[in-house]
């Protein structure tokens, strides 16, 4: 049994709210509408609610698993499956988190290249961001959680910008409600479910909350807040674009910001792209922190060493992922993996642990 982190490294349970919001609202929110509109049209908000409901159940399961295990996932794995199989599962989990880190970074670089500097090389941006991530993650979970809080409040003004396109939007585009068959809605919900991924972080940061079981309600609230943010984004996009046009646009949210015309600023989306770094940064930090923490638990590697290694690998990946076709393939792979992790692996772990504890109790 590995020791739990000391109290001086822990944070208050309510910070689970910020951690979950920032990890769920990442780079995907800039583009998710155009993926959903192809399947669910104006009814995409129903799909979002469906995915949100499923996510709440999954978070509940996660907490059940963690409350019983009373430590992070590596310890639970070892307890349930033994040293070797448990270790392998933990290792795969860590790799999964690392790949999400790479993809998030790569997608943000793509936005920068598209919007601001077409000539800039991948590795250059990746290197700069990696340095910032290093400085945050090295500070430990408390610092990363604090960054989540800052990021949450920094991006509220960006949410308010939705008012501008809303004023030009047409309510009629939302009708008729429930016009799409339930199968289409479910398909879109499946796409949407991936945007909610990231709460798996809880498997690693659970022991870092004081009175950890109490953070459950905050995590649920955090997920509800992300739903609200996604819902607002989707509704505004449906009203502002026609369905057919929305399916053509790559980054609907960034395109929405183009309409904002302030007297002192001609084009606001540049500010938005820059500010979005603060949304991406805690995201990247959390994934990498969880990955390095997992390695520490597994192999007793110092987090600083594995962090430098991961960052180096991440920059390398981004440098070589230059063609959109490769990025897309990786994205599809990670999405598939994410679905398995969230909707098959977590329920499996939950049921397995239930049975395990029952059998042990009988014995």
């Amino acid at each position, binding site marked *: 049994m590995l020791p739990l982190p000391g109290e001086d490294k822990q944070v208050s349970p309510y910070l689970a709210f910020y951690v979950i919001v920032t990890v769920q609202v990442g780079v995907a929110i800039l583009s998710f509408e155009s993926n959903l509109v192809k399947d669910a049209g104006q009814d995409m908000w129903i799909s979002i609610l469906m995915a949100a409901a499923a996510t709440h159940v999954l978070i509940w399961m996660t907490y059940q698993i963690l409350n019983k295990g009373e430590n992070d996932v590596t310890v639970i794995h070892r307890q349930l499956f033994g040293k070797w199989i448990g270790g392998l599962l933990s290792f795969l989990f860590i790799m999964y988190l690392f790949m999400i880190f790479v993809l998030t970074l790569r997608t943000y670089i793509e936005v920068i290249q598209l919007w601001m500097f077409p000539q800039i090389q991948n590795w*250059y941006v990746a290197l700069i961001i990696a*340095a910032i991530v290093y400085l945050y993650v090295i500070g430990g979970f408390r610092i990363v959680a604090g960054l989540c809080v800052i990021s949450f409040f920094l991006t509220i003004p960006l949410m308010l910008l939705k008012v501008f396109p809303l004023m030009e939007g047409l309510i009629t*585009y939302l*009708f008729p409600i429930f016009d799409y068959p339930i199968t289409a809605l479910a398909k879109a919900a499946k796409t949407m479910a991936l945007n909610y991924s990231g709460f798996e972080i809880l498997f690693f940061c659970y022991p870092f909350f004081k009175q950890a079981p109490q953070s459950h309600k905050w995590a649920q609230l955090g997920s509800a807040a992300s739903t609200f943010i996604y819902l607002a984004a989707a509704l505004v996009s449906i009203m502002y674009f*026609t369905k*057919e*046009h929305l399916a053509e646009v790559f980054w609907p949210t960034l395109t929405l910001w183009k*309409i904002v015309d302030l007297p002192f600023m001609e084009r606001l989306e540049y500010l938005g792209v820059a500010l979005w770094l603060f949304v991406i940064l805690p995201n990247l930090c959390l994934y990498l922190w969880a990955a390095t923490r997992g390695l520490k638990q597994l192999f007793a590697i110092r987090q600083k060493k594995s962090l430098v290694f991961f960052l180096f690998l991440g920059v390398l990946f981004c440098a070589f992922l230059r063609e959109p076709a490769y990025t897309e393939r990786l994205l599809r792979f990670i999405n598939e993996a994410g679905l398995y992790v969230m909707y098959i692996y977590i329920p499996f772990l939950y049921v397995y642990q239930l049975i395990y504890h029952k059998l042990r109790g009988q014995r």
Partner: protein
Amino acid sequence: MKKVLFWTIFVLVIVFSQSIDPSILEDTQLITALGLDYVDEQMVKGTATAPLYPPGQDPKPIPVHFTATARTPQIAVQEFQRESQRPLRVGRMEVYLFSKELAKHGIRKVMDPAERSPQLGRDLQVALVDGSAEKMLVSSYRNGEMPSSYIMDLLEKNVKTLAPSTELHNLMNQLDGFGQDPFLPILEQTEEHIRFTGLAIFKDDQYIDELSFRESYLFRVLFERSTRGYYEVSYKGHYVALMNVASKPDYQFNGPQERPRLTIQLSVEGRLSDAAGLHLDNHGEIKELEQAWAREIKKKTERLTKHFQELGADPLAIGSKARSHYRSFNEAKWEGTYPTIPIEVRVDTTIQNTGLTR
């Protein structure tokens, strides 16, 4: 020591391998308006206004124009580069014009770069030129303004009250969206001014007809809520002008999806502003004037909708509204249904007051 070495190398790498060429505002020339003329199937003639600000305090911009013929607008911009003093940038473009001739051959092709470019705003003003776009942009006008800012102000502040707004965003929505067709303001060059002459009606992306200035105003009343403008009504041998205080259209579909009937409920509130020769001091007379006004609007707007149906163009977005009304809407059949649906305009007019006198 190791730490210092690491960060030193890091900073050196960051500083010396950056590959962004800086773009300093004072060293660039901003294209503020682009006009496109038709040459042939393949080629367009692009004309850009890129004011040059000479150094000094409070400089007056010098109008600079570039003209080039190319296959796509973007290549035309590159051609301008060959003669411009400073690097050209399109980020501040405010006006995008093309000639009627070009519009007749379809605008999708020339709108594509505007939609695709991350540098252009979604509130770019798009308009049609009756005649040559080049001539409109290179001429100088009485007010001494840059043609681009003149057109921009005209479209954004004045035409807005007379016709629905047509920014890039609306145009792209109309081009891609189901059950709606674009419309654009037409500008015409007079001796010393630029004049708004009416709205061009498109079928898909091709110009097919135009509305006069008066019809454009009625079109706006049918299209969206409006709060400005004047109506002219003939009443008992006099011509009366009524100010539009607030008008609001409401589209109601009745009947099954195969045979829909459309009623446009139009409520208009107005104020009498010009009624020489009339003495309106009792309620009955005002009521009568209201009714005459309503009849006038009904007659003219129904003529408009009828005309759109005959053209097969749908600038009022009736198809899109029908799709929002009917469940499991059959989009493929709509094109056949649209010209046949009976459209009735019901007008409800109220005269708020008669101004300062009776």
